[in-house]
């Protein structure tokens, strides 16, 4: 693939993981997350096992650990929330480093942190090895309604166009001596936002015209068929299938 839609999370490469059809990877990640979420939080060792599985996938995809860890930063707000739990959740108390915290709160925090981190890490790996366009086509193959697929596709295509328009408007404002400082100037910004909305709306009309002119009748033709063969499905599903026995052991144990 050429310079497709590289998003910030994507990392170009030609590893076996990159090469899998996007929809198989989507199913694999979903399966993995389901298994992780089902695992009882007390089975601490199980989560270590899942982490090891993800590490193996990362190694196979040649995604460096540093890259992965930095992308995990999306998780920070949840971490903050989880860290509050031991202090606010009522229940049996214990002391950690001389501070009184609640036991159910601690388990709750651990639960969120462990499962959240694993889920986010799996998604980051998916995003790091799949182009945005591929993800959307994958969702389409998995039966995401065509309308949603179209909306998502247009967001990719026109995101930059609209941002660019926004930037030009901002330059035009500043060239005429406007700096947004404080509430007094919000009116101007609101008017610009309104103008941007109208411009985007009108562009939408023109794009629709162009689509109709080329035979659009309401459905997008599905291009880029990338059916998955048995081996590819097996490779993708290896992740959730390896996680499953860990989960079962934890549930029984």
């Amino acid at each position, binding site marked *: *693939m050429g310079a497709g839609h590289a998003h910030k999370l994507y990392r170009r490469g030609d590893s076996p993981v990159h090469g899998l059809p996007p929809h198989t990877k989507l199913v694999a990640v979903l399966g993995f997350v389901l298994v992780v979420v089902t695992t009882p939080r007390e089975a601490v060792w199980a989560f270590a096992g899942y982490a090891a599985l993800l590490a193996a996938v990362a190694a196979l995809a040649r995604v460096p650990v540093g890259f992965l860890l930095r992308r995990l930063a999306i998780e920070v707000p949840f971490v903050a929330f989880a860290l509050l739990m031991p202090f606010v959740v009522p229940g049996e108390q214990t002391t950690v480093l001389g501070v009184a915290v609640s036991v159910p709160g601690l388990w709750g925090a651990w639960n969120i942190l462990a499962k959240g981190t694993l889920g986010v890490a799996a998604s980051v790996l998916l995003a790091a090895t799949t182009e945005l366009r591929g993800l959307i086509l994958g969702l389409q193959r998995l039966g995401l309604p065509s309308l949603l697929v179209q909306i998502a596709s*247009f967001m990719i*295509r026109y995101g930059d166009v609209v941002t660019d328009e926004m930037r030009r408007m901002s330059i035009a404002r500043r060239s005429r001596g406007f700096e947004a400082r404080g509430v007094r100037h919000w009116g101007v910004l609101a008017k610009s936002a309104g103008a941007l909305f109208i411009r985007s709306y009108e*562009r939408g009309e023109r794009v629709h015209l162009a689509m109709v*002119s080329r035979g659009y009748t309401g459905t997008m*033709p599905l291009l880029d068929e990338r059916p998955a063969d048995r081996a590819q499905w097996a490779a993708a599903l290896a992740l959730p299938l390896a996680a499953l026995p860990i989960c079962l052991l934890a549930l029984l144990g």
Partner: protein
Amino acid sequence: MTSTPSLDVRGLAYAYPDGHQALFGVDLTIGRGERVALLGPNGAGKTTLVLHLNGILAAGAGSVTVAGLPVGKKHMAEIRRKVGIVFQDPDDQLFMPTVREDVAFGPASAGLRGAALDAVVERALEKVGMAGYADRPPHHLSFGQRRRVAVATVLATEPEILVLDEPSSNLDPASRRELADVLRSLDVTVLMVTHDLPYALELCPRSLVLSEGVIAADGPTREILSDEELMTRHRLELPFGFVPGSVA
């Protein structure tokens, strides 16, 4: 006339829903393989006329016929395939995430798939000299490249007539010339709406002048551009220092 003309417009009149009448009985005929420029001042009704050619706007009175097929609800899919319109802003025209998907859109809508589709896309991109760009997203291309891809998206449906709205606008001189080379190399009928009179002279042996909703002149481009009285009457002006008679 031996063969059916590519485009035949008879007595076409149209008023916008707000009551503004833009076309007052337009008559024109364009033969197969001709390259014709449509000139006229701002607001003359050129874009309005273009939108009638593939049935986006429905005639208030009169008729449009494309290669013998009347434009109307009955043959809409066929008409849309036969009339390839390249709009002025390539960002409106190129709405798919990659060049390849965009060029494939028209033929795929018509049901083409697989290797046949790939071949059509390949051929269309080659014709405009953009074969190496299939996997690029349109917004990473230069304006001139986007304009050429826009032409390819339309060529992919193998149209009977190619209609371009202001093809040379916003192009630098080199891109403008490259597009001219592309247009000259095609063997389709071309109707080119333009304010760029030297471009019209360079590419189109024949010109039509649309003014206030009617065809005010129809003849060899050089003669029209040399007719000072006609030009002034219809607010047409040549660029400074340009003398149509002196261009080879």
